[in-house]
């Protein structure tokens, strides 16, 4: 019995000992397992403090840094608590701010470039007009910036971007969170935004301001296209009212549908049409809207006196300054490096490193556009036409604007070349068949080639772009017909149909109303005398001696006198 008790006690002791050993081992393992989770924090913070200790002192920096090797160190990372020193959290915050700052600066600077395009437009349009209308044409290009900007600040931006929250490049823009929708066929379709009037309330936000500046200069580009097409006979008051309305309503509506989360951008998610309507930088949103509105207004304003003969044939009305035209074209080409690469709305993260490809695509399409127009005119007429060469450059740039973010350099060259020829054919068609007088070719450059640009996305998008892994809420890259996705082409056709069917009709009706209330056209006397003195009160070039115009251009003047 005693032996049995002793034996059992031995087993119990062994069991307790085993349990103790196992318990201690398990505790040791648990501690060992917990250690790796906790260990990085301490060494990382320690490492950061070490880096801070090694950072150059003020005395070092006081000696100057000609090589740029000691400027910008751990010392420059703001810390939340100076007693604790730099932490991983501080560094992470700074990295995030750096990303947003890079994108802010990129978007702002490219926006400034686009703003400078106004100067190019002014020179091109005024140069292609007669000297007696120079002041008036320059003034329209000058004032359209003001009129458009004010309308856009009042309400245009809210309509366009008021529901476009979620852009990670600019910090999220979460205050732009109200998109008004209509329900059709069981799906909700975005129609217009609702926040951002006066940039007040929650939209008093740093990211929203950056977006506003960038989108505003785009809007202004669309507005200034109309001034060229209607130059030399558009009443200044009518121009002011029409531009204000376009900046407030026409442009923002279509831009919302394409860029602000509206129904065109939802065609992919709702209707399985590729990635929805894709217009990277605005062949459709900016240029086609401007060109198509220009066509609507041009029809209402009518051709200039002397442009067409009784038999319907047209007379060339030569501009006064080809040097201004070509320099203006170069300014525009320079500004386009803001237009297209800037439309990434960032240079850091989310596939934005494609900005180099976008810039090269842009310059190549301008190049082949010039070739297309210049060679076409040279072969057709035996002479190089400087103004059409300039228009060819612009046509190539307009056409590449929508596809620039999605196509290869070969695609860009083809798109630009076709645009260069297309602009020549379109100018002839609009003038000789439609009998619409467009002094600068704006309808063809921006309207026709803008539509071609929209279409070309659906053909040439090569499926290599990757802006954060999705576009318009559809995963993957935008791919056109030639690379295997025919449905993307359908989405682009829906966009073209909307530009022609909605934008044209809306602009036409609005401008018919302006014609009724204001009157779109100056009087015969004003037109024949030139718009500078009657409308502006000052000649563009007061020391010039005007050469009398051919009789054909002043027939309507008979019976009138200038006092």
């Amino acid at each position: 019995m005693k032996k049995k008790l002793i034996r059992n006690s031995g087993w119990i002791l062994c069991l307790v000992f085993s349990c103790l050993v196992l318990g201690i081992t398990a505790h040791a393992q648990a501690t060992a397992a917990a250690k790796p989770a906790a260990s990085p924090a301490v060494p990382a913070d320690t490492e950061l403090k070490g880096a801070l200790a090694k950072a150059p002192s003020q005395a070092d920096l006081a000696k100057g840094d000609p090589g740029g090797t000691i400027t910008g160190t751990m010392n420059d990372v703001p810390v939340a608590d100076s007693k604790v020193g730099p932490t991983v959290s501080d560094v992470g915050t700074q990295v995030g701010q750096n990303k947003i700052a890079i994108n802010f600066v990129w978007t702002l600077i490219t926006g400034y470039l686009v703003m400078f395009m106004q100067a190019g437009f002014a020179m091109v349009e005024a140069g292609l007009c007669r000297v007696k209308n120079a002041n008036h044409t320059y003034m329209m290009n000058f004032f359209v910036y003001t009129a458009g900007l004010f309308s856009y600040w009042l309400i245009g931006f809210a309509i366009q971007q008021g529901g476009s929250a979620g852009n990670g490049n600019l910090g999220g823009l979460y205050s732009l969170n109200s998109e008004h929708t209509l329900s059709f066929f069981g799906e909700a379709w975005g129609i217009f935004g609702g926040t951002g009037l006066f940039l007040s309330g929650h939209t008093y936000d740093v990211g929203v301001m950056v977006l506003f500046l960038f989108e505003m200069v785009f809007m202004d580009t669309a507005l200034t296209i109309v001034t060229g097409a209607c130059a030399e006979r558009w009443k200044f008051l009518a121009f002011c009212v029409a531009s204000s309305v376009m900046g407030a309503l026409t442009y923002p509506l279509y831009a919302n549908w394409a860029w602000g989360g509206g129904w065109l951008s939802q065609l992919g998610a709702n209707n399985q049409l590729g990635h929805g309507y894709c217009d990277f930088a605005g062949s459709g949103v900016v240029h086609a809207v401007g060109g198509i509105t220009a066509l609507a207004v041009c029809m209402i304003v009518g051709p200039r006196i002397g442009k067409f003969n009784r038999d319907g044939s047209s007379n060339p009305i030569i501009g006064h300054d080809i040097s201004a035209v070509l320099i203006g074209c170069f300014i525009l080409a320079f500004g386009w490096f803001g237009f297209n690469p800037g439309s990434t709305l960032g240079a850091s993260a989310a596939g934005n490193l494609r900005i180099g490809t976008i810039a090269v695509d842009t310059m190549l399409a301008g190049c082949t556009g010039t070739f297309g127009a210049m060679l076409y005119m040279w072969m057709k007429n035996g002479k190089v036409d400087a103004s059409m060469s300039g228009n060819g450059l612009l046509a190539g740039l307009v056409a590449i604007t929508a596809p620039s973010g999605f196509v290869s350099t070969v695609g860009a060259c083809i798109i630009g070349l076709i645009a260069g020829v297309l602009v020549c054919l379109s100018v002839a068609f609009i003038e000789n068949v439609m009998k619409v007088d467009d002094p600068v070719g704006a309808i063809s450059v921006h309207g026709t080639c803008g539509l071609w640009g929209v279409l070309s996305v659906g053909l040439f998008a090569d499926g290599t772009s990757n802006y954060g892994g999705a576009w318009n809420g559809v995963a993957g890259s935008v791919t056109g017909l030639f690379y295997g996705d025919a449905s993307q082409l359908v989405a682009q056709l829906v966009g073209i149909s909307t530009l022609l069917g909605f934008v044209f009709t809306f602009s036409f009706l609005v401008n018919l109303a302006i014609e009724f209330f204001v009157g779109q056209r100056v009087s015969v006397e004003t037109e024949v005398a030139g718009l500078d003195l009657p409308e502006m009160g000052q000649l563009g070039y007061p020391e010039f001696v005007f050469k009398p115009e051919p009789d054909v251009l002043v027939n309507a003047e008979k019976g009138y006198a200038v006092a």
Partner: protein
Amino acid sequence: MTLRGPGGVVMAANKSQGSFYTLFLAAATVLCAGVFLWSGGLGKLLFVVGVLGLLASLFGMLKIKPLEGRTALKPSSTAMKLIGAFVAAFGWFITLFGMHLTISVAGRMILALVGIGVTLFGIIVILPAAFNKNAVWKT
């Protein structure tokens, strides 16, 4: 500079135009402020004031419009212009509804092209005919 025609002195830009455009801008600003503050009573009041201001500016411009004098435009059929605009819009509706008539890519593409064709007929054929029928250059 004063321009004179058979009917006497005719107008170019003048003070009234500047005044009415100023009123137009001010009214548009008030109207937008009304939209911005819509949830309150003040917002609705501003909206109404803005609309009235816009109407006043437009009718003011309409009142001085005849002073402009003769333009190089002849009256043309408003009905034809509206028909052209309607046809242009109708083409767009064909495209829109075409997306829901079929889910086939080819079918949608064909309907979109038909819609664009109808729209272009309105823009390229009907409207120029409406504007050019009595064009001043034909006389």
